[in-house]
């Protein structure tokens, strides 16, 4: 809410500046989003009088002025034309600094403009921060100044200087969206006096006005007051400026009064042209099916049966609490008015504004909730303003309120208050005195005291609400501070810490292999997911996505990660290694949480796009990237024992270049997937589910007995794979075999065509004692015999 510092001073005798006021409000729970200075340069400019005005000899669009500032007569070059000889102007002399057009500050220096000396500047409203736009320079109103004022600071003669605070009001404080609300808070905290307002009583109830409320759950109070003999006209400047400081503009004296009261007291009210409504049948009800309403801004609204309207026997007159109707609105011919002040169900107003996308100063206040107490006061203040700005003869009407609604009351419980706020160094009476300033009241009740909440608060009912007000008035910083204490928490929920510790370790392992961690939004699109094979109706679908590309939650990390790898490549990055760990979502299936509405699982994925220019392996080992990837994956995953994953969609891989892991997949992507993703080169990817937990680590004694190394070379048909050989070695279970490693594989002209040579190194060791050569040889022969027998079809032989 915009709050004028100057307006505020009319309400409370506050001695600090605008920034001090902002700080006090922030300490009360009303922080501010900035302070705008109005007329920031007024104490820098002086009153000047234009003595001569001629055209600049070199430039038609410039004027040469002589301006009298009392002590001297200054030559001024001016780009504006709206002044005439004899006008009073706001002159910034040499040495002055005014805000300037951009508000960044502008220092006056003597200047030569096309050969003519200028010793200052005639300022415009914009340059003095008095308006956002203006034409020509500011001509000071001559009725308020005379020649004896020449040279005086403009700020001494005109009180235009002000500061507008942009105050944040939390959704629970609809009552604080007005000067009185904020003034009351500041006055209470600092112990200052508040101004009392002029009011005029109205006659009530009367039989001539007979309002109704269809349902107290929609509206808890409704007051209607007929006022005869009002005069339509203009609003005086003082009140126009008041409205301007709240960001509102003046329309007519009658309409302006409704806004003035709203900004003063926080309660919106509406004036109907009384000759266009029926005071005997007016009231608040829900709209009937098919009803329409032409609003003040001439839009035709098709009303919803849940909308609240003010209506009489002829039909809807206004959209309750939101906007008036065109038919019954105030006009130049208005002679009599009907004042409507009500309290509506905030949820209903909020639903209506959302439904029709119509928001107003009134709806903003009603949807935060406004009390039914003091409806009379709103009318009384409006009548006083009518007397001041218009006129009237008789004011009489009727008010109905839901009598069930009473001010909230609670029992004082000092023990409980201190149990939550900490020790308070004030007596009960001192606290009561503080709270009375916020219009709390207290009365004895049994052995304790009953606390009546302030009439204007709609959101309070607990002792905790009183605690908050005590905290706000004393200052949160003055509450008791305590040392850090810690107790072990009870745990009765499924603990995911072991899973997350595991995922942290796996992630760190990827990082050590040069993968950088990406974190993406959880959103994806079915089109993108489909490129990696995720289709069907198992998506978690967002009802109101920001963007069609964010319409579902990802079922896999890979599509988004691969798309990002591509963007990185497009941005000129190379050797792209990305890893991401996080949740994946599906409509059904396994989930890691208890009582989880949809399935959420933890996954980790990686993408590697090798340096494209490294085809010649200039700086990398002379190894195909597939084997570098395979080696990295083996090294990363070897320490972790993972639970097998079910229902894992596997994307299309380059034939045979796939690494099968029980808990996921990895390999080189199929060229068609690359094409679909608009990628060139080669891409290696993997995705794994993180299921299970970190196993307890176990260490063993290191080897102490020596090993015996042997090797064996074979020639076989070229179709025999190293993998098949390795598998056979493993299966043979030759005693003492510690490991087998292929160390030379080649095809050459020395061999017969379609043959290849494979050499393996073997290490044998006995863990309990020294292995004899005899034992090693026996085992080695067993191993060789097994391979020769198994791969007979490949015409395998020892070399």
């Amino acid at each position, binding site marked *: 809410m915009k709050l004028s510092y100057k307006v505020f001073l009319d309400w409370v005798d506050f001695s600090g500046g605008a920034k001090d006021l902002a700080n006090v409000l922030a300490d009360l729970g009303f922080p501010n989003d900035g302070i705008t200075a109005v007329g920031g340069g007024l104490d820098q400019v002086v009153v000047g009088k234009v003595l001569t005005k001629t055209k600049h000899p070199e430039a038609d669009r410039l004027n040469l002025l002589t301006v009298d500032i009392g002590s001297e007569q200054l030559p001024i070059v001016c780009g504006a034309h709206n002044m005439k000889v004899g006008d009073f102007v706001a002159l910034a002399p040499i040495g002055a600094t005014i805000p300037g057009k951009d508000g960044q500050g502008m220092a006056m220096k003597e200047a030569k403009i096309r050969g003519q000396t200028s010793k200052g500047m005639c300022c415009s409203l914009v340059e003095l921060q008095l308006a956002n736009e203006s034409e020509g320079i500011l001509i000071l109103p001559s009725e308020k100044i005379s020649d004896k004022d020449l040279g005086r600071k403009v700020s001494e003669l005109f009180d235009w200087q002000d500061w507008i605070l942009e105050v944040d009001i939390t959704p629970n404080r609809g009552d604080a969206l007005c000067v009185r609300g904020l003034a009351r808070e500041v006055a209470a905290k600092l112990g200052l006096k508040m101004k009392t307002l002029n009011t005029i009583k109205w006659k009530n109830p009367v039989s001539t006005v007979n309002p109704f409320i269809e349902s107290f759950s929609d509206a808890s109070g409704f007051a209607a007051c007929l006022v005869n003999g009002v005069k339509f006209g203009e609003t005086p400047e003082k009140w126009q400026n008041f409205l301007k400081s709240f960001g509102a503009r003046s329309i007519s004296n009658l309409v302006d009064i409704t806004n003035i009261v709203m900004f003063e007291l926080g309660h919106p009210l509406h004036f109907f042209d009384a000759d266009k409504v029926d005071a005997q049948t007016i009231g608040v009800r829900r709209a009937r099916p098919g009803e329409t309403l032409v609003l003040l801004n001439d839009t035709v609204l098709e009303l919803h049966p849940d909308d609240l309207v003010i209506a009489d026997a002829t039909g809807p007159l206004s959209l309750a609490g939101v906007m008036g109707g065109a038919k019954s609105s105030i006009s130049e011919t208005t002679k009599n008015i009907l004042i409507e002040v009500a309290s509506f169900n905030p949820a209903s107003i909020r639903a209506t504004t959302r439904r029709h996308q119509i928001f107003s100063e009134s709806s903003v206040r009603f949807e935060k909730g406004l009390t039914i107490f003091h409806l009379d006061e709103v009318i009384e203040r409006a009548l006083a303003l009518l007397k001041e700005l218009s006129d009237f003869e008789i004011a009489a009407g009727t008010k109905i309120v839901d009598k069930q609604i009473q001010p909230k009351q609670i029992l004082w419980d000092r023990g409980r208050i201190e149990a939550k706020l900490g020790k308070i160094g004030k007596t009960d009476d001192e606290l009561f005195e503080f709270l009375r300033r916020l219009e709390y009241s207290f009365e004895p009740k049994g052995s304790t005291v009953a606390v009546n909440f302030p009439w204007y608060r709609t959101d309070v009912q607990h002792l905790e609400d009183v605690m908050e007000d005590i905290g706000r008035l004393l200052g949160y910083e003055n509450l008791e501070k305590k040392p850090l204490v810690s107790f072990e*928490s009870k745990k009765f929920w499924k603990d995911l810490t072991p899973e997350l510790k595991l995922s942290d370790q796996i992630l760190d392992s990827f990082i050590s292999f040069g993968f950088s961690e990406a974190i993406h939004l959880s959103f994806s699109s079915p089109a993108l997911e489909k490129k990696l094979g995720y289709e069907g109706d198992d998506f978690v679908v967002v009802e109101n996505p920001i963007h069609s590309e964010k319409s579902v939650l990802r079922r896999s990390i890979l599509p988004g990660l691969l798309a990002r790898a591509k963007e990185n490549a497009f941005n000129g990055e190379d050797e792209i290694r990305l890893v991401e760990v996080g949740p994946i979502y599906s409509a059904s299936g396994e989930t890691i949480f208890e009582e989880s509405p949809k399935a959420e699982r933890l996954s980790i994925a990686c993408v590697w796009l090798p340096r494209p220019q490294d085809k010649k392996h200039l700086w990398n080992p002379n190894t195909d990237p597939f084997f570098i990837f395979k080696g990295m994956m083996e090294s990363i995953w070897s320490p972790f024992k993972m639970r097998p994953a079910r229902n894992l969609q596997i994307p299309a891989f380059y034939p045979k270049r796939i690494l099968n892991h029980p808990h996921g997949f990895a390999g080189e992507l199929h060229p068609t997937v690359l094409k679909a993703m608009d990628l060139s080169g080669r891409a290696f990817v993997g995705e794994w589910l993180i299921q299970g937990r970190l196993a307890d680590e176990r260490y063993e004694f290191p080897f102490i007995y020596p090993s015996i190394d042997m090797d064996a070379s074979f020639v076989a048909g070229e179709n025999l794979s190293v993998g098949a050989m390795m598998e056979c070695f493993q299966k043979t279970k030759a005693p003492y075999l510690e490991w087998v490693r292929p160390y030379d594989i080649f095809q050459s002209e020395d061999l017969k065509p379609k043959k290849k040579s494979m050499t393996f190194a073997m290490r044998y060791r006995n863990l309990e004692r020294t292995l004899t050569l005899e034992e090693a040889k026996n085992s080695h022969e067993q191993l060789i015999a097994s391979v020769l027998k198994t791969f007979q079809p490949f015409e395998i032989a020892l070399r």
Partner: protein
Amino acid sequence: MAELTSSKTIDLLKTLSSEAKEKISAAKLAVDVEQVRVSYFGKKGFISEVLASLKNFNAEARKEIGQVSNQVREELESLLSQKKAELETRELDQKLLKDQLDPTAPGVFYPRGELHPIRKVLREAVQIFEKAGLTPAYGPEVEYENYCFDKLNFKPGHAARDMQATFFVKNQGTERLVLRTHTSPVQVRILLKAAQNNFELPIRVQIPGRVYRVDDDSTHAPMFHQIEGLAVDRTATMGDLRAVLDYFFRNFFDEKTKIRFRPSFFPFTEPSAEVDASCVFCKGSGCKVCKQSGWLEVAGAGLVHPEVFDLCGWDSKSVQGWAFGLGIERLAMLKLGIPDLRLFFENRLSFLRAAQK
């Protein structure tokens, strides 16, 4: 006679010794040094020959000459091996320098990997809160609207719901689902679970995780990370809450960091507070980042609202607790000097790898 002869021989040894010294110092190559050794100490070497003639002297002379010759030999041997080692080292260096390897060519490229800045900050924050005794707890991101709002005392149709623009999730069932707008529904889950477990106390947890809001501009992302804190027991006060946050921010930023509480409003806490930390950039003296205030808004906090206890099956008169929530992205921007929120989710490698330590 014997003396005269022995002195002659001694003179001869001394002459040979100084000759040899000159040759050693003049040697240019290790092989030259070896030659000098052979020519003096070899089988036919000068000094060897002199010593061979020793048998012609009497015992006393032999002893005298022997002493001198030992001295000469020790001295020369030491000079020889010293010179040889010196020359060999120099020759090896010269040989190595002639090697064809161009050491200015680049090394094999091992790319650096970096954790995401959000991860770094998240891990650090979780660790600090663990030290303060808060156990991590987690919950689903696709959440019941009831847990995300109603049970946290967001009344249906209340303007407070506008504080958190919400993504809704399509659902066949009757329950309305949302993408959680904050980590607070995990509070609800824990309170409900505890109510089924005889209201055992204390509860002291931290809840890190992803949250979602319908918002997408330069300072808001539709998804971000939060850490929530929750303590429930019979004595938790505003002072205890303050102590935990004070401990956190001193450890997270630096020991001199101060915090302050300002009144605020959240539907699920009462009293509620906005928490400021002294500006990490200007140390509280005022700068552009803190809008000259010296303070930065870093968390929301408060005492658990009695309605929340009641809605989760507790008796709000007999229990109390505090809660807080903080945004990881904001903390990461402050701590790591990250200039723009959008950088977090663009995941450009040039950004991810840019960390200077």
